[in-house]
């Protein structure tokens, strides 16, 4: 169907090349700024991939994804800084705890559908945001928590955090790629299209929804951990409901239902503003307009454009052949 573009990395080789490229990038480019931008893209890709799986694949809307992003970041930061827990344990606890909370929340929440689900997830992030802002002894309130990355992780890991971030993102892409070409992936799409229909074919709809919810929350937790250690200070604003809305926008602009789209969306949302500085006051206005243009003229999102371009470049013959076929039909 046209609504959901399902363009994906169709080869593991492409992924491998990407992985190698990003692993060796720092040896060629010596720009901390560029590295930071790539790190932020990777973090948002993790968020986008998870959300896309939940939303583009399973059809469960969430306007509360930044709550899980926050849970990952805060849990690891609190454990490391307030309880002196070694970072590797803190990270595992953060991911597992976020998954657990997602699991508990998903039971009542996933009973809801469509707009009701949207509101419930929005309420969830607003509640989490309030707690982060008000529970001062634990979360530091709006002053947040300062994470002294170097002393917590040791200089070597702190210096090479980039590889952890990129590595985990590549693994996440690989996993989702696997899902999307397996029967599990199709079953998730099936319940997106018709819940009763899926249920009648033996697909445990509820369980699959919960799986997707928990998995995407855990990916968000990983993103949160990276963000906390990269930025070294976390405050509730970083994880606000507004960020959740941005994430949703990112997935749709990238191309709903497409893993590639989630990544292109992340690039878009991080990089575009960098180009808009020259417009100063008008930058957000232009940003919003560009999003509108993409939605209006490129239904498949950025992934759709990407697909078209690459089809044009690499399969020129086949493509133009098909095109002319259609033309003849139209003319007749």
């Amino acid at each position, binding site marked *: 169907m046209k609504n959901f573009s399902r363009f994906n990395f169709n080869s593991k080789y492409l992924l491998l090349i990407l992985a190698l490229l990003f692993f060796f990038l720092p040896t060629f480019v010596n720009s901390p700024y560029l590295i930071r931008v790539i790190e932020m893209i990777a973090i948002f890709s993790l968020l986008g991939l998870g959300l896309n799986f939940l939303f583009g694949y399973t059809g469960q809307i969430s306007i509360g994804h930044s709550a899980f992003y926050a849970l990952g970041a805060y849990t690891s930061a609190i454990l490391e800084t307030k309880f002196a827990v070694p970072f590797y344990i803190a990270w595992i606890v953060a991911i597992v705890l976020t998954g657990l909370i997602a699991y508990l929340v998903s039971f009542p929440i996933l009973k809801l559908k469509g707009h009701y689900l949207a509101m419930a997830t929005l309420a969830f992030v607003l509640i989490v945001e309030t707690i982060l802002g008000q529970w001062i002894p634990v979360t530091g309130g709006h002053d947040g928590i300062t994470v002294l990355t170097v002393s917590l992780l040791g200089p070597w890991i702190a210096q090479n955090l980039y590889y952890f971030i990129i590595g985990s993102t590549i693994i996440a892409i690989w996993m989702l790629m696997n899902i999307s070409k397996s029967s599990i992936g199709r079953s998730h799409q099936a319940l997106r299209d018709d819940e009763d229909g899926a249920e009648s074919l033996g697909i445990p709809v509820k369980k699959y929804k919960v799986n997707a919810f928990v998995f995407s929350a855990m990916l968000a937790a990983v993103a949160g951990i990276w963000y906390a250690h990269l930025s070294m200070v976390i405050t509730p604003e970083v994880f606000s409901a507004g960020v959740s809305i941005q994430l949703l926008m990112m997935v749709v602009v990238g191309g709903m239902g497409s893993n590639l789209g989630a990544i292109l969306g992340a690039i878009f949302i991080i990089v575009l503003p960098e180009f808009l500085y020259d417009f100063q006051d008008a930058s957000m206005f232009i940003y919003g307009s560009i999003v509108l243009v993409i939605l209006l003229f490129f239904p498949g999102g950025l992934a759709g454009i990407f697909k078209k371009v690459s089809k044009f470049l690499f399969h020129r013959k086949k493509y133009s052949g098909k095109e002319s076929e*259609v033309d003849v*039909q*139209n003319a*007749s």
Partner: protein
Amino acid sequence: MLKVKNVSAGYDGIDVLHEVSLNVNEGEIVSLVGLNGAGKSTLLKTISGILPAKKGDIYFDDQKVTNHSTDSLVKKGMVHVPESRFLFPALSVKENLLLGTAAKDNKFRKLKSDELFNFVFDLFPVLKERSSQRAGTLSGGEQQMLAIGRGLMSNPKLLLLDEPSLGIAPILVEKIFESLLMLNKEGITIFLVEQNVSISLDISHHAYVLDLGKVIMSGTGKEVLNNPQTQEVYLGGF
């Protein structure tokens, strides 16, 4: 009353109908038969303006109405009861029926029922019983009755019916066809797509056979029904 001239139409660049021509004269019942996928529903959708015609022309009451909007055609008296019914599942039976009158005058008028209700309720008493039930919870057959009932509410001149017997119990199918005859006698022209050819051709003045988007045969209802080819393809085996 209805003239279809060399109409081609289809979906997304793929033509389903190829230069179809046919006529429905005022006061007649005309049937269209054909195998699954022949393009019968596509033709009805093209006539009623749901689907654009890519080529050819459609005349209604000697007026060219090719690609006119569905609502303007309903206003002119052409009503389509589609195969997929397109009811309003969340609205009550009564509201569904009322909406059949939407085209008549769309002022900010207050809702009220009129004698048309009684006509439909006489035809399908069960709808009266269920008048405040949500259409979405009706049984399959009840929904079909509601779709036909809604079509009748606008007091049409020409009724395009796509498989009215779909999902209807035998005893009621008889009743529906009797009513069609009655409606026809009252002056409503009917263009009918029906799989149950033995009964539909039986009451039709005229019939066309569609195959792969082309009209391959036409004649009076009886002629088409008794044609050996029809017998084999459409009645084969029973």
